[in-house]
């Protein structure tokens, strides 16, 4: 008999994620017993949605840890692009969702962010990992007419609705990036910056 389901049903080991892994992502303190009850009810009622900002923070932290354990639905073979199933697009706000996936996935230096609706893939943005390009503490990035100085260890999002834009890093490396609703993410964090 069919029933309404939810994104977290794709992760069968939610109950095995250590609590401290989840709390490390949270900007506000959550009592451990409340967090355990929250996760338990997500497992019981996977079709339910977060109504408040605080609940969404927990959902995104849970997603980060669940994806770390099992990242296969999100990476396209070959290109390594991030592929977001439609189910996730309806369940999370887009920009925090992309942010969470960047935190959890092992990405190639330049990848697109795609949303999959049936057989159609729509590009909604790009992610560039610039950790290998740092020159001292800041690097200079030129995106169209904008010039940005980014700090080492930062993750920055730049709105970019245009389909394609050139990006220059320290006037040395050049990429063509695709924009969209999510924009462009420039990740200057090393692996240690992301891991706890």
């Amino acid at each position, binding site marked *: *008999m*069919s*029933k*309404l389901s*939810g994104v977290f049903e794709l992760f*069968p080991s*939610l*109950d095995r994620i250590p609590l401290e892994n989840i709390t490390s992502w949270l900007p506000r303190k959550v009592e*451990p*017993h*409340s967090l*355990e*009850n*929250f*996760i*338990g*009810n997500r*497992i*019981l*009622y996977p*079709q*339910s*949605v*977060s*109504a*408040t*900002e605080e*609940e*969404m923070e927990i*959902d995104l932290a849970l997603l980060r840890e669940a994806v770390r354990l099992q990242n296969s639905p999100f990476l396209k073979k070959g290109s390594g692009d991030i592929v977001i199933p439609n189910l996730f697009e*309806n*369940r*999370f*706000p887009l920009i*925090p969702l992309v942010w969470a996936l960047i935190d959890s996935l092992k990405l190639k230096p330049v990848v697109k962010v795609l949303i999959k609706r049936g057989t159609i893939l729509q590009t909604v943005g790009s992610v560039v990992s610039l950790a290998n390009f740092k020159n001292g503490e800041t690097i200079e990035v030129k995106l169209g007419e904008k010039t940005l100085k980014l700090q080492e260890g930062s993750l920055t999002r730049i709105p970019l609705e245009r389909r394609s834009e050139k990006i220059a890093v320290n006037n040395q490396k050049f990429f063509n990036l695709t924009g969209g609703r999510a924009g462009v993410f420039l990740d200057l964090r090393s692996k240690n910056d992301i891991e706890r």
Partner: protein
Amino acid sequence: MILNANRRQRVEENIITHVVRAIAGKGKISVKDGQEVTPEQILASFEMNPGFWSIDLAKKLKVKNPDGEKYLQRAIGSRIYKGELLAFKKELLGERIVTSPTDGVVDRYDKEKGEVVLKFFSKSIPLTAGVFGIVAKVDSGRGEVIIKTMATEVYGVLGAGRERGGELVVFDHGDNIVSKEQINKNLERKIIVGGAIIYGEALKKAAQLGVSGIVSGGFNARDFISMAGGLDPNHRLGNDPGMSILATEGYGALPTGEDILSVVKGHSGKFAFLFGNERRLLLPSTEADSIIRLRKVELPLHRWPHSASISIGEIRIGSRVRVIWPPFAGWQAKVVALDQIPTTLSSGISTYLVTVETAHRKLKVPCPNVELI
């Protein structure tokens, strides 16, 4: 715009099922296959040994451990009653007397420890049917009587523990915390229903006092994990924590649903069966006429147990729903309006809201956060 929600079966009335009544010690079953039984009918009697009591006899008589047996005044295997002379030693300036602290049988003398062990008298305990039904099978080897009966099934969302039977004790309010103080000896071998939550200390006390089972709106996840072995009911280990438990709503303090409480209240004081690992509570029919229907129905002995069905249903004006997510989780209400355009919640998600009405207020809830009753 069609809005859908899960419809989870919570109560199933007048089903025909089997219950197993088992003796807990050596005994004799006095019913036969095909026999019709009533709740107070005795199916079997069995001997139950309540245990042993050790007395450090050598120490009391001030003799070496192996020598204590010489001073016993009752033979091994003989009966003795509380206060009667158990051992006696004459001394130069007096005597040492040891009397029995309890009724029992002098079971043995342990020469190494210098202790005499008294075995309490066995008790003969009757096993009643507890239900109106027809005996489907007597298994003397396992000491079991399987009875076909008519019953109402109540399904929960998480549970632990093997099948246990007991008299149902229903707390008046389904939304209170069941405290440790409310758990007392009078609840031994009973099934408690009601309350929004019962915490770890009260659960432990209940298990120690021999409460058969507890049905609550919710449990704290940490308490449930310590009893069931895991959080995900789909990864059940089939544990038996010494007592059966069932939550009707989920994790946390959630009021027992009115749909379940109203059914269970009608069964208060009567016999019920709690299958924690299967997440169900069985309320046998209290009508003698149910036997008439049972005579007409054949039920194979080996079949899968009942489980709650979940299907998709359309949310309509007038539908009864149960809110499954905070801040109104556990509330039951009637749908009075359906939004035609989506709303963006403070979480950033865009979804349709439904307006529901309880006895006291109206509220708007995201439609994924309700289930149809």
